[in-house]
């Protein structure tokens, strides 16, 4: 009997599918319309054979009762892939979320976080911080915004007066939009200090420094989509399947169509589970692994000699070093990887070109992170893989706008656009901001302090607790402002708690209370201010591939929250520089009568100033047109190849790359299309082509640093290497007359970076097909770094004293980002104390797909929280057995700092014997105790747990002060 019956007495349901299919016959449906309804959008042209052509008709959302449904287009805020989301809003309430199949970046796909962003708009059972709060006698009490701004403002002004502007540390955010992070840099500058930072410090600072110093720009060279064009991809220090799940859409598709996949990681990750070749190596030995691969490339003559001759400086020196120091026996000794495995990786990368290297925090978060990332760059240069589609270094950024915040936001050593902080840079920005340089200078303690890089957020705690005579500023820090930043993402939790208790004032500006609200044992002196999320305001965000996307405001700010820029302006007024802060920016009144700086105007100001990295062409109008016509862009090339005219602006998108990936040079009128793959000489500069940057002089040791003759971007008038352009060079070349008289007036005495008319860039690019930043060689040898050729050095806390003897860390540094920084002293002390005997297990940390960063936001989302309810440590069965630990037992994980955390034991072979791994998203417990009582009522996250960073140890990168989280030591015992 066929069990196929309907309950009796029920109305026969119209068959929706047959109805939809009927509709399908009635009209022609193009490919995209099909995809919209199919759930199987494949995107890439090569994938067309896999497309369904008779599925289901176009979506037609049935109008629900009670008001019109508006569709707002926004972008997920949880990682740097930039997945578009269509938010359905009814009566001001976000009722539904639909995938955007048209997005060339994610083709409708989402991970657990992206598929649940609607939770941000829900007010029922919300765990948000709902109003300003003040800690009074150990309890959070509600206060008004006015009281908050006044009290905090008075206290900060008092500290500024007594101890100088450098006595306050400001942690900005990679979750701010470009506009907000840009304004934050300006805001803190006007307060008078460079003591500011944001998540990039502990995310990819080593990448930015290492990569920019190699070839020009410190960013992902290609794109997630460009994986579709690769023949081999090597992930080293990236677990994309959990950290950037939607990038795997492209990676796995490439793999299906023949690309090889290598994963090198101390942990057998979910990404490794998909690999053709997996290499498990000792945590912290990326340089030996990468140079081990390079050894075989050189030995077999697989390097690209013409490319190295034309476009790379110093590879001969690297070659000498590699052939001498990284012979297979030494590689195996340091990394634990067998020669055959290294050889196989080398062969796969060499014989399947273009091949790409992908990395993330596995490579960056080490005391030698800057060397590791350069080793990756060098490998790619040797193979001739940089500047080509399918190749490059695909560096996966973390937060949704960490790229943008790095580009234009609160960095302690540079002004928006990597201009640095020397007088010339300040003068440029004062001109853009419309303020007087002398006034700006007067805001700082002195010109010297104005030009001295600030402290980094990885070390702010030492700015509070370090002896005053050892710090490189007048006074210690007395206040800290956590503006969109989780504290549990920074190492040395134990010492952080002490610093939090020592400062006079702590201010937290965040949609959630964050662990900052509960970590310190304080009775007073803490304020929590509710900022709204990016779904409650508008603005642009830069994805990892450098594409900018504009977010519509989905709903009005919830509860009493306000957009970050509104809060900044309120404080600017309180501090007395309101007018200077928004000189070029219109103010609009919000519903409570507060002034909100107009987001579009903030972007226009960015457009007006950030010439160095081409943030000038991405006008609000162009970006919005892109968001309205995502279907115009090819997912494989990211380019719009036909005429598509946006009705609202009349703008034709033809030729543009999606999101105008920076550099998008010149002003918007020049219509530079953006650059999807950096340094690609096979294209004209006005088609997004380029070459390596001339940023390191024109010769070194008598050798020219400029590109060899004949190596240049397609169609360039200058067919040799050339330096960057300025008014002198333009005059010499006889191109000066091509500037308009107005442009000439502005460009006189200027260069391509500070000519606000854009004339120099226009003439160089459009009239002559040349690159404004010159045409030079990439540097395999970065002579201005501590190790000009990347060197392996053991981590501060190593489990191998024998290797520490061979590969010791750096010498201590006295005043490094204003602070004394220990290397050898700390490493040697650990060896002398035999720390590796008491703490024999290597501790490393990483991400879970369900959570982001410090995790407060995602652990407050019930749909995500349900999936990961407790923190855990991954421990190998051997180590578990020898300790009598069973699956999901509670264990204590302790570290050399004296701190310990209580987590579950996840016994698994995912980690090798002697290695443990803990996700870093948890907080809300402190050494075994749940801090639930300390949160403001109703604002504790659903899931709380121990933070791995409560026990992490000392150790910082020798260039950028990146914290060393990926390799330290611990002991594990049954609780």
């Amino acid at each position: 009997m066929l069990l196929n019956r309907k309950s009796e007495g029920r109305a026969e349901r119209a068959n929706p599918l047959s109805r939809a299919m009927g509709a399908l016959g009635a009209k022609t449906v193009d490919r995209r319309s099909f995809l919209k309804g199919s759930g199987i959008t494949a995107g890439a042209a090569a994938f067309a054979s896999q497309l369904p052509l008779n599925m289901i008709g176009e979506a037609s959302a049935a109008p629900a009762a009670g008001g019109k449904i508006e569709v707002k287009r926004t972008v997920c805020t949880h990682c740097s892939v930039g997945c578009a989301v269509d938010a359905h809003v009814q009566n001001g309430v976000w009722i539904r979320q639909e995938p955007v199949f048209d997005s060339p970046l994610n083709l409708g796909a989402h991970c657990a976080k992206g598929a649940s962003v609607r939770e941000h708009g829900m007010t029922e059972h919300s765990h948000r911080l709902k109003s300003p709060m003040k800690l009074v006698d150990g309890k959070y009490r509600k206060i008004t915004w006015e009281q908050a701004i006044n009290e905090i403002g008075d206290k900060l002004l008092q500290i500024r007066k007594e101890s100088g502007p450098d006595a306050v540390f400001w942690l900005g955010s990679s979750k701010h939009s470009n506009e907000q992070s840009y304004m934050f840099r300006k805001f803190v500058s006007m307060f008078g200090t460079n003591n500011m930072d944001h998540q990039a410090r502990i995310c990819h600072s080593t990448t930015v420094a290492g990569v920019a110093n190699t070839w020009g720009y410190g960013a992902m060279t290609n794109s997630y989509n460009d994986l579709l064009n690769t023949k081999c991809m090597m992930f080293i220090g990236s677990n994309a399947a959990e950290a950037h799940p939607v990038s795997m859409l492209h990676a796995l598709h490439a793999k299906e169509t023949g690309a090889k996949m290598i994963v090198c990681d101390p942990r057998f990750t979910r990404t490794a589970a998909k690999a053709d070749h997996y290499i498990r190596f000792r945590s912290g030995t990326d340089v030996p692994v990468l140079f081990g691969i390079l050894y075989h490339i050189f030995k077999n003559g697989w390097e690209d000699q013409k490319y190295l001759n034309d476009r790379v400086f110093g590879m001969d020196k690297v070659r000498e070093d590699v052939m001498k120091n990284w012979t297979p026996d030494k590689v195996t000794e340091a990394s634990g990887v067998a020669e055959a495995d290294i050889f196989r990786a080398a062969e796969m990368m060499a014989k399947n070109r273009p091949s790409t290297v992908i990395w993330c925090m596995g490579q960056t978060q080490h005391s030698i992170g800057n060397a590791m990332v350069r080793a990756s760059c060098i490998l790619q240069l040797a193979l001739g893989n940089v500047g080509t589609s399918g190749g490059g270094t695909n560096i996966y950024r973390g937060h949704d706008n960490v790229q943008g915040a790095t580009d234009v936001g609160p960095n302690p050593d540079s002004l928006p656009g990597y201009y640095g902080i020397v007088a010339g840079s300040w003068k440029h920005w004062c001109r853009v901001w419309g303020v007087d340089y002398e006034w700006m200078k007067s805001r700082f303690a002195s010109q010297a302090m104005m030009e001295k890089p600030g402290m980094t957020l990885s070390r702010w705690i030492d700015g509070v607790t370090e002896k005053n005579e050892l710090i490189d500023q007048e006074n210690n820090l007395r206040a800290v402002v956590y503006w969109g930043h989780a504290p549990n993402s920074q190492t040395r939790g134990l010492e952080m708690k002490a610093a939090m208790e020592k400062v006079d004032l702590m201010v937290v500006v965040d949609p959630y209370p964050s662990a900052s609200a509960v970590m310190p044992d304080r009775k007073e002196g803490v304020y929590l201010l509710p900022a709204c999320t990016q779904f409650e305001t508008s603005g642009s965000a830069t994805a990892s591939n450098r594409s900018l996307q504009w977010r519509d405001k989905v709903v009005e700010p919830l509860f009493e929250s306000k957009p970050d820029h509104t809060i900044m302006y309120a404080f600017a007024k309180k501090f007395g520089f309101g007018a200077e802060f928004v000189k070029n920016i219109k103010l609009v009144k919000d519903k409570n009568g507060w002034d909100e700086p107009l987001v579009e105007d903030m972007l226009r100001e960015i457009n007006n100033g950030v010439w160095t990295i081409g943030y000038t062409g991405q006008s609000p109008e162009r970006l919005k047109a892109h968001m309205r016509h995502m279907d115009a862009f090819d997912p494989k090339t990211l380019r719009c190849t036909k005429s598509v005219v946006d009705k609202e602006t009349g703008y034709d998108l033809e030729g543009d790359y999606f999101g105008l990936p920076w550099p998008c040079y010149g002003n918007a009128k020049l219509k530079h299309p953006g650059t999807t793959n950096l340094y690609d000489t096979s294209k004209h500069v006005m088609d997004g082509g380029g070459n390596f940057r001339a940023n390191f002089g024109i010769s070194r040791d008598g050798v020219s640093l400029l590109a060899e003759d004949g190596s240049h971007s397609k169609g360039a008038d200058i067919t040799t290497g050339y330096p960057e352009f300025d008014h002198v060079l333009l005059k010499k070349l006889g191109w000066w007359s091509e500037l308009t008289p107005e442009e000439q007036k502005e460009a006189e005495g200027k260069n391509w970076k500070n000519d606000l008319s854009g004339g120099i860039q226009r003439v160089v690019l459009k009239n002559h097909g040349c690159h404004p930043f010159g045409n030079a060689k990439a540097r395999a040898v970065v002579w201005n770094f501590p190790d000009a050729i990347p060197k392996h050095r053991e981590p501060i806390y190593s489990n191998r004293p024998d290797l520490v003897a061979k590969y010791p860390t750096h010498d201590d540094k006295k005043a490094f980002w204003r602070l004394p920084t220990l290397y050898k002293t700390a490493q040697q002390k650990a060896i002398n104390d035999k720390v590796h005997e008491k703490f024999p297990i290597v501790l490393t940390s990483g991400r879970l797909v369900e959570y982001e960063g410090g995790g407060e936001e995602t652990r407050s989302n019930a749909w995500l929280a349900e999936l990961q309810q407790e923190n855990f440590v991954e421990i190998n069965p051997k180590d578990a057995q020898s300790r009598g630990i069973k699956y999901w037992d509670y264990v204590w994980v302790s570290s050399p700092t004296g701190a310990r955390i209580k987590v579950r034991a996840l016994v698994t072979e995912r980690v090798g014997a002697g290695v443990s791994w803990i996700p870093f998203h948890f907080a809300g417990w402190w050494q075994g105790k749940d801090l639930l009582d300390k949160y403001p009522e109703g604002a504790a996250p659903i899931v709380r747990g121990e933070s791995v960073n409560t026990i992490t140890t000392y150790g910082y990168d020798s260039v950028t002060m990146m914290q060393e989280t990926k390799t330290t030591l611990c002991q594990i015992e049954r609780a």
Partner: protein
Amino acid sequence: MARMKFICDAERCIECNGCVTACKSEHEVPWGVNRRRLVTVNDGKPGERSISVACMHCTDAPCMAVCPVDCFYKTEDGIVLHDKDLCVGCGYCFYACPFGAPQFPQAGAFGLRGKMDKCTYCAGGPEENGSAEEYRKYGRNRLAEGKLPACAEMCSTKALLAGDAEVLTKIYRTRVVTRGKGEEIWGWSMAYGGSGKLADQPGGKA
């Protein structure tokens, strides 16, 4: 006539749980009730594979066979739905289902089983399509809007596919031919009878 099915491609599934939260958000499924979930084999070892599992909308659905109150019915598209007004929460279907699809929210003070809840293939229930009542009991009816299930539409790697069986088979076949892996479609033998091998499905051959 279409026959709606799911395919989960284990070569592509990365256990990201996007399908799970898409379902949660679309239908506001309460904590503790999981219409869809991930199952991983060889966790942390070579050969690790994950599969996203929900009601497979079986051909000869065991849940329908065992239900004492006949609350199940099948749509013309082959989707197995049920009527919560009839369901008594006995739990027989849970024991009968090879995929563990039926879920029972706790109801009442003594941990009584509430009415069964499971994946509806985003096709609602017996109430009027798109009505508030239907939403309250079963969640959204995407099919009535001409959309496919939210889980498959949002899948991060397009591992989870939903749609007419023959179309799905063709898409899946192209992948298998391209990569030379995955001839057996996970769960199909159990749910729909036969071998579950790609070649034995309509549209599964060139």
